[in-house]
């Protein structure tokens, strides 16, 4: 045929060069497949997204316009990155999440990390704190200081940041239902250090919607919870302009077992719900949207993760400009933190986790993350040991300073496969967003258990694939071996709980009782009247009201949330 051009190979046989994929499939490929088939009938990502054999310009099509789809770094729609110079200008922030035991122990871990080159702090709180309960609450027994640091009152917060000037670090606090209370405590510490609020910077996770969907740490029902969030946004817009008010998180959605597309879709939908809430509360979208940021998971499937991150930037830019009419480019930017996937780590052959984390971290970097947490190899067993944390941080430093991947911006941009997969994930995510919109929005969908069920189904499907061996986990369902003793792990001693309870008792005994009571009463009045809750909350924590006391004070007004469980 006229468009086939014969060429000669080294051994003199005549071979043809294909001019289209069809031609290649019918010729060279067919012959190869007749000899020996492929390893599998179907190939798919860890999320079961089908992946084709080969991607060519035909997958992108004639209408695919790089200016419209990709733009340039630092320009709409930010597919290639939010900064014009990306890592050539400045590396990502290496931010290792840390927190365990008492405030004093965590303070020591923070100082250790800062001395070893970490550039921002990230606080992990224990479960009672995350649930807005004091250490002496009935349900807190056995959990105090276990998964993070125990914070009951301002006294603990003062100890947590002792010797760490809050105008010189940026702090990320992973807390949601009681986020406003802990934020108020952080501001109170800044006040005591003499640091003005406008110099305080950091990020509050403060993403309650994903709690109902995935992480399940809630206090109040969704609607009053959204009001606390919009109060906090309004307050920060005026008083703490460098604070990132919500870190809209896909991380936990993924950890709960979602697919990559579900993580992308449910998280962006949550983001849209917060923007809606802010606008409904009377705020100008460009006054608060620049301070919204995102938090993604980076799992094992390298390209799926990179494409998810690229798609996230493009979707968010378009939604903010077209759906919400934002005019400030900073409102269009999807800036994000990435953490490697805790759920991908294995308790078997734990050193293999270092390799998993490296691949996942590299995906985060090639996806253009602004900050990164690398998991420690022993996290499927317990909280990380110092040694494991150091290896995790070194992994980032090797990627940043040895691998060369930071030399150019978005090195995978323009790859047929990467662009086709980015487009496909965008399409599938937007289809989910449409379904959620049709249900009446995120809160209505949560109330119907929609996202929860989609995630549970995906988690079950994946577990079945692992059990059947159709998805491989090295060391778990393939390449198993007998192992000697588990590595040394970090243990939190029960003494932490006893000491915490004693400290809490002392705070209650020594605080100014009438100042405390007046502050809590003023807070409840604000909840009833609709006034902004943050100033009275700040006064309550200054008066050493505890996390549990502040949260409980609002229960009579806001009620509590109870999930209808689906299995």
């Amino acid at each position: 045929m006229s468009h086939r051009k014969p060429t000669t190979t080294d051994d003199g046989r005549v071979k043809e060069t294909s001019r289209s994929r069809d031609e290649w499939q019918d010729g060279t490929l067919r012959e190869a497949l007749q000899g020996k088939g492929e390893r599998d009938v179907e190939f798919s990502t860890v999320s079961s997204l089908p992946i084709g054999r080969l991607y060519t310009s035909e997958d992108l099509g004639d209408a695919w316009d790089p200016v419209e789809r990709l733009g340039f770094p630092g320009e709409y729609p930010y597919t290639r990155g939010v900064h014009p110079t990306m890592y050539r200008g400045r590396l990502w922030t290496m931010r290792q999440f840390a927190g365990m035991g008492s405030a004093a122990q965590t303070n020591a871990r923070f100082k250790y990390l800062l001395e070893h080159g970490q550039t921002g702090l990230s606080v992990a709180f224990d479960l009672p704190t995350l649930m807005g309960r004091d250490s002496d609450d009935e349900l807190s027994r056995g959990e105090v200081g276990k998964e993070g640091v125990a914070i009951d009152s301002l006294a603990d917060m003062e100890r947590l940041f002792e010797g760490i000037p809050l105008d010189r670090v940026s702090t990320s606090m992973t807390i949601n239902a009681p986020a406003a209370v802990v934020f108020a405590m952080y501001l109170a510490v800044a006040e005591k250090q003499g640091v003005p609020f406008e110099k305080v910077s950091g990020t509050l996770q403060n993403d309650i919607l994903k709690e109902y969907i995935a992480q399940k740490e809630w206090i109040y029902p969704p609607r009053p919870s959204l009001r606390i969030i919009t109060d906090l946004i309004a307050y920060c817009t005026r008083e703490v302009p460098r604070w990132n008010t919500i870190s809209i998180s896909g991380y936990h959605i993924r950890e709960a077992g979602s697919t990559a597309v579900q993580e992308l879709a449910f998280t962006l939908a949550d983001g849209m719900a917060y923007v809606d809430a802010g606008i409904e509360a009377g705020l100008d979208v460009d006054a608060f949207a620049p301070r919204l940021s995102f938090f993604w998971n980076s799992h094992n499937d390298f390209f799926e993760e990179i494409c998810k991150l690229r798609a996230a930037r493009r979707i968010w830019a378009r939604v903010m400009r077209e759906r919400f009419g934002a005019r400030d480019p900073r409102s269009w930017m999807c800036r994000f933190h990435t953490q490697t996937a805790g759920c991908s780590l294995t308790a078997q052959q734990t050193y293999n986790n270092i390799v998993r984390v490296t691949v996942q971290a590299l995906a985060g970097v090639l996806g253009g993350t602004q900050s990164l947490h690398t998991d420690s190899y022993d996290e499927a067993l317990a909280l990380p040991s110092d040694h494991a944390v150091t290896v995790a941080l070194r992994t980032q430093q090797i990627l940043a300073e040895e691998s060369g991947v930071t030399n150019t911006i978005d090195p995978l941009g323009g790859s047929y496969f990467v662009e086709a997969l980015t487009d496909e994930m965008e399409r599938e995510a937007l289809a989910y967003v449409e379904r959620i919109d049709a249900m009446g929005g995120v809160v209505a969908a949560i109330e119907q258990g929609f996202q929860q069920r989609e995630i549970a189904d995906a988690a079950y499907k994946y577990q079945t694939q692992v059990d059947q061996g159709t998805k491989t986990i090295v060391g778990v369902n393939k390449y198993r071996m007998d192992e000697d003793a588990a590595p040394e792990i970090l243990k939190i001693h029960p003494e932490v709980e006893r000491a915490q309870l004693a400290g809490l008792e002392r705070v209650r005994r020594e605080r100014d009782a009438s100042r405390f009571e007046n502050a809590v009463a003023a807070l409840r009045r604000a909840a009833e009247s609709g006034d902004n809750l943050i100033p009275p909350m700040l006064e309550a924590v200054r008066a050493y009201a505890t996390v549990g006391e502040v949260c409980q004070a609002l229960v009579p007004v806001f009620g509590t949330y109870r999930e209808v469980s689906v299995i």
Partner: protein
Amino acid sequence: MLGTVSEAKVNEARKLRLLVGKVGLDGHDRGAKIIARALRDAGFEVIYTGLHQSPQMVVDTAIQEDVDAVSLSILSGAHNYLFPKVIELLKEKGSDDIPVFGGGIIPEDDIPALKEAGVLEVFTPGASTDEIIDWVRAHIKSRRES
């Protein structure tokens, strides 16, 4: 209010009735839900407590629902307190014939003490659902036959 109760088939009087519980403040319910669904699909009757149950709530449900075993999923690190507490409360109610097993992020070192406290079996990350189902078939007997 309880979560989902799988449909009971009248003709299977000996079908095992299992409680899958999340106790404490731990919100990680991915594993518990997968186990609940796998046990249900394997033909057992499964009652899932939902989240944030106190040991007392789990024990009360186990007794009211007359289950053949209680399985607990704990990823919070509070297993050394919560497992023994549930066993102790079952004993107080004279229901210590209800066996307790479970799983989660539980260090190997802690398992001997948990077994000593009466936990029948502990499954750690990487255990397959088949392994757990096989174990239940081999070790959990219907209490209603005796």
